[in-house]
């Protein structure tokens, strides 16, 4: 472990962190813009050109607001809640391959904070810890609406994690690896996993909506029933952290969808570009391709949010346990049969 390695990794980590924050910030702007456009309005357009400074103005406002804490015996937990939500939201970006590699200063720089061979499990683990931010915050608020919101969020996330994990198993049977880097590499050319595992993709997409608490599944902050859900009692930048963590989660889950199913940084003609224009340019275009894909997903998230109304809670649980889990198990079995078709045919003597 030489010092250049440490410097290289620190730069990568800092850039990834910065980009995540920036994307989360501008997701709030994009959300408002997309919502407005879908409703025949123009959205924020006063702060800067096209309202581009709106997130900064929002942040400034949140920082300047009075910080109000409810009369709760758990001041410490009340403060820790948003912190956990934010930290877990930012930690997931560590294993995502943003691009293949750049050849700079005479060394190959991997465009990934760390390539552990259990990358997907890491993401699942961190996401499951993320529930604690919501649960602890909601519980420590000493408010029944917050508590119900927290319980709803937690049970929803636990339920959908099962379906999400099972849907990904079919994909992993095909790829044979848990490392996101290798999964990206396998999808070179147009061998995107979505063409081979469409059902897995659909289930994963639905579960990603549920895991990020986005609209058809945003029962945890369902305004008509629960005021604001788990962040009812929060104000100022603490509430900002919860909202920000939600957008960071959305960014990360879009990225994971793009990496797992839509070829990550691969784009058609990447090898041709690498041969003719050089590796660096090919990979920079690759980063661009990944960002185009994930921005498409972020847009899709918003598009769905302003189209589909909220589920009822029993419908949500019905969808998760009775439909998505059996469907993903069937998907696993079909994938297994297809992978082992040679052996099965040999066994049957065809």
């Amino acid at each position, binding site marked *: 472990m030489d010092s250049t390695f440490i410097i290289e990794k620190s730069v990568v980590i800092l850039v990834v962190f910065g980009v995540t924050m920036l994307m989360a910030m501008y997701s709030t702007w994009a959300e408002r813009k997309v919502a407005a456009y879908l409703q025949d309005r123009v959205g924020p357009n006063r702060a800067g050109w096209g309202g581009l400074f709106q997130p900064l103005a929002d942040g400034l406002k949140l920082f300047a607001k009075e910080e109000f804490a409810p009369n709760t015996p*758990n001041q410490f937990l009340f403060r820790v809640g948003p912190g956990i939500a934010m930290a877990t939201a930012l930690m997931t970006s560590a294993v995502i391959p943003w691009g293949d590699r750049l050849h700079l200063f005479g060394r190959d720089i991997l465009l990934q904070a760390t390539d552990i*061979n*259990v990358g997907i499990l890491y993401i699942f683990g961190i996401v499951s810890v993320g529930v*604690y931010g919501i649960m602890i915050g909601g519980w420590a608020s000493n408010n029944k609406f917050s508590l119900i919101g927290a319980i709803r969020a*937690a049970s929803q996330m636990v339920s959908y994690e099962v379906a999400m994990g099972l849907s990904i198993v079919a994909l992993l049977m095909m790829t044979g690896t848990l490392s996101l880097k290798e999964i990206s590499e396998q999808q070179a050319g147009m061998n995107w996993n979505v063409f081979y595992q469409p059902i897995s993709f659909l289930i994963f997409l639905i579960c990603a909506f549920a895991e990020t608490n986005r609209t058809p599944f945003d029962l945890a902050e369902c305004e008509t029933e629960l005021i604001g859900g788990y962040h009812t009692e929060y104000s100022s930048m603490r509430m900002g952290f919860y909202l920000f963590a939600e957008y960071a989660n959305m960014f990360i889950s879009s990225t994971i969808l793009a990496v797992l199913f839509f070829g990550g940084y691969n784009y058609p003609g990447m090898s041709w570009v690498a041969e003719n224009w050089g590796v660096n340019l090919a990979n920079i275009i690759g980063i661009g391709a990944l960002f185009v894909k994930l921005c498409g997903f972020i847009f899709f998230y918003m598009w769905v949010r302003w189209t589909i109304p909220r589920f009822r809670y029993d419908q949500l649980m019905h969808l998760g346990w009775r439909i998505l889990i059996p469907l993903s198990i069937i998907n696993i079995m079909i994938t297994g049969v297809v992978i082992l078709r040679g052996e099965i045919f040999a066994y049957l003597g065809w």
Partner: protein
Amino acid sequence: MIQIPDIANATPIQILFCVLSVITLATAFLTIYSKKPMHNAIYLVICFTSISGHYLLLNAQFLALVNLIVYIGAIMILMLFTIMLMNLNKENEVHKPRITRLGAIVVFCLMCLVLIAMFMNSKPIADGSYDVTGEDYQSIQVLGKLLLNEYMVPFEFASVLLLVAMIGAVLLSKKEKIEK
């Protein structure tokens, strides 16, 4: 026999180990001693997290993450659930009779003795008397092959056990249909 660690020349891993151990032990004791059920559960969560950290120090990434997902992400969430829904905040713990407490202490001391005896006779890792297979047992490929070849039968038995438990839970929770 027992090596006293050289604190001045401790490697970063040793320092990490010490910090993690302190967190593990402290939160484990706090889990027992804290009076509020919610706090107990949260201390237990921190304890599990630090145990995941121990696994990572042993280079067992898969185990660490599975511990994180299963224990912290699922079991403890369900525990928190029950605590939140049962509203156990009032301290209405039943006073345990003296004989149970005495028994618990005796069992604990015996357990300690067994553990100490076990660790005294175990081989230290550093002396190289283990066989080296050259296989990377932290990699999930190797782990999976091992589980599904060498330890196939116990693995399947464990899954059957879980299935039975699940079916039992469903049966218990299901309301009996009123026959007409």
